[in-house]
């Protein structure tokens, strides 16, 4: 709180006070009071005025300075009203009450949206379980009636993939912590996603090479399987026609981390696109010229990795390779977000 600005704000009261003093002075002179006495009265009058102004200033200063510095230092500024105490002067109290009131109203408003969002997420999760039943049923029917069923199963697996995408998108967007972190074997997780994608990998004659996967990391196995499946799916979209498609899956262990590489020999990512590939809805050159892309896959992977406390990045040389690298912290080095 700036004293000069405070005084400038008090311009009118000061003018009124001066006018009043002029009238008093005039009045006292009319009664032939000695100028020495008028001077003493004047000193008393103005000293009282100054003390009054200073007192007003300091009373407000404590309250407003705390308010301003709290606002500046607070990470979540909407918590201000909870940090502030009601002041001992009237206008401040009015202001404080209004602050609390608007804050409460905003909280209610936010809670309302949060409730909507949670309800929506719950409904989506429910819907996903629901819609998986007919898909499961149809897959069984295809298997039980093998004539021509291969192409039907293939489409069903595509539907299932779309359903999973919706589910993990909802999970990644929501703050709800519905994952469970425990020791997961990279070998097992990769095996699950490889078996799930076997038909397509085989159709495209993809060579899978695994190395050093006999290691455990702290993660949620379901999420990791999904992430690996997505990366395999991406690789399959962007293989080069000139060479035999190949994906190398291997891990490197350091003192603090386990680093998982999933490296394909596909068409790679243009250097100009590389910094943006994990951004929402970013499709880039490959997404436009090659396979159709929604720009959501890598974004979801990034969000899931962030929630789990893993680091994910991509390295690539165009027309040579794309390497998606996930870094898992070791035990106590995991930072939960």
């Amino acid at each position: 709180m700036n004293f000069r600005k405070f005084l400038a704000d008090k311009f009118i009261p000061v003018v009124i006070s001066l006018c009043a003093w002029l009238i008093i002075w005039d009045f006292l002179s009319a009664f032939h009071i000695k100028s020495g006495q008028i001077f003493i009265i004047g000193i008393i009058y103005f000293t009282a005025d100054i003390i009054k102004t200073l007192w007003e200033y300091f009373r407000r200063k404590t309250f407003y300075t705390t308010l301003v510095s709290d606002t500046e230092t607070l990470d979540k500024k909407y918590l201000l009203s909870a940090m502030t105490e009601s002041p001992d002067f009237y206008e401040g109290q009015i202001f404080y009450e209004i602050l609390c009131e608007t804050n409460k109203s905003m909280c209610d408003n936010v809670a309302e949206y949060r409730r909507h969002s949670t309800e929506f997420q719950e409904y989506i999760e429910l819907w996903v379980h629901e819609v998986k039943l007919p898909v499961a049923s149809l897959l069984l029917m295809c298997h039980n009636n093998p004539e021509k069923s291969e192409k039907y199963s293939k489409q069903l697996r595509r539907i299932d993939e779309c359903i999973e995408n919706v589910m993990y998108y909802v999970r990644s967007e929501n703050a709800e912590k519905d994952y469970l972190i425990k020791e997961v074997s990279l070998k097992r997780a990769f095996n699950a996603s490889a078996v799930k994608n076997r038909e397509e990998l085989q159709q495209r004659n993809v060579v899978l090479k695994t190395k050093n996967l006999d290691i455990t990391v702290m993660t949620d196995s379901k999420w990791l399987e999904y992430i690996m499946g997505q990366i395999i799916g991406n690789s399959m979209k962007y293989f080069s026609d000139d060479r035999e498609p190949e994906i190398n899956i291997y891990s490197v262990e350091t003192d603090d981390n386990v680093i998982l590489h999933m490296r394909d020999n596909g068409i790679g990512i243009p250097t100009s696109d590389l910094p943006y590939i994990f951004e929402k809805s970013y499709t880039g050159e490959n997404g436009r010229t090659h396979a159709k892309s929604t720009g959501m896959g890598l974004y979801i992977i990034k969000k899931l990795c962030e929630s789990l406390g893993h680091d994910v990045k991509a390295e690539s040389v165009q027309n040579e390779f794309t390497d998606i690298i996930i870094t898992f912290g070791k035990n106590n080095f995991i930072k939960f977000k």
Partner: protein
Amino acid sequence: MSKIYVVEDDKSIRTELAELLKNAGYEAECLTDFSDSKRHIIESESDLILLDINLPSVNGETLLKEIRRETDTPVIMVTSRTSETDEVLSMSYGADDYITKPYNPTILLLRISAVLKRSSKENIKTSYRNLQVNTAKGSLSDGTDELVLTKNEMIIFQLLLDRQGQIVSRDDLMTTLWDNEEYINDNALTVNISRLRSKLSDFGCENAIETRKKQGYILI
């Protein structure tokens, strides 16, 4: 023949599951009255139970916990819930495996057979013709000589042996190999089969594996 009890409230999945199991040579029985599931399940005296989590009037996990108090029949949880929490909970309540819908039917059958083997309700064949099969060592022996198979060949031979006399499709062989972390392609499978054939015939088992066109292979 092992008897499998299907606890699944979706009628269409239930019927298809029963058919799948019957085609695979199991006896399948389905629960249709969910009012007293626990009693029905226990009275069925099955060799294995396929249990759904979302059941009318009772939660599959609770049911599993109750079943476990009375019997140690193997249970495979089959569910559309894909969260780690559900899986960990089910396993801690004593489930033998956990599979999420929609599952690959071949994998479901593989898991069933693996669980049955573990609980040794299914006879493990350890001999073929006059040969002793040593899965752990990956070899066959006729008492004097030993025939060493590669890991892939052993997996293929074991599956064919388990279903001796039945046709095993290439798809089943592939799924089994991939499930065992052998990510081989179509050509490699053909190569592996022909190598296995010649090894067997060198060892005195002529025409052990027959090819059924467009269907698969059969171990005679």
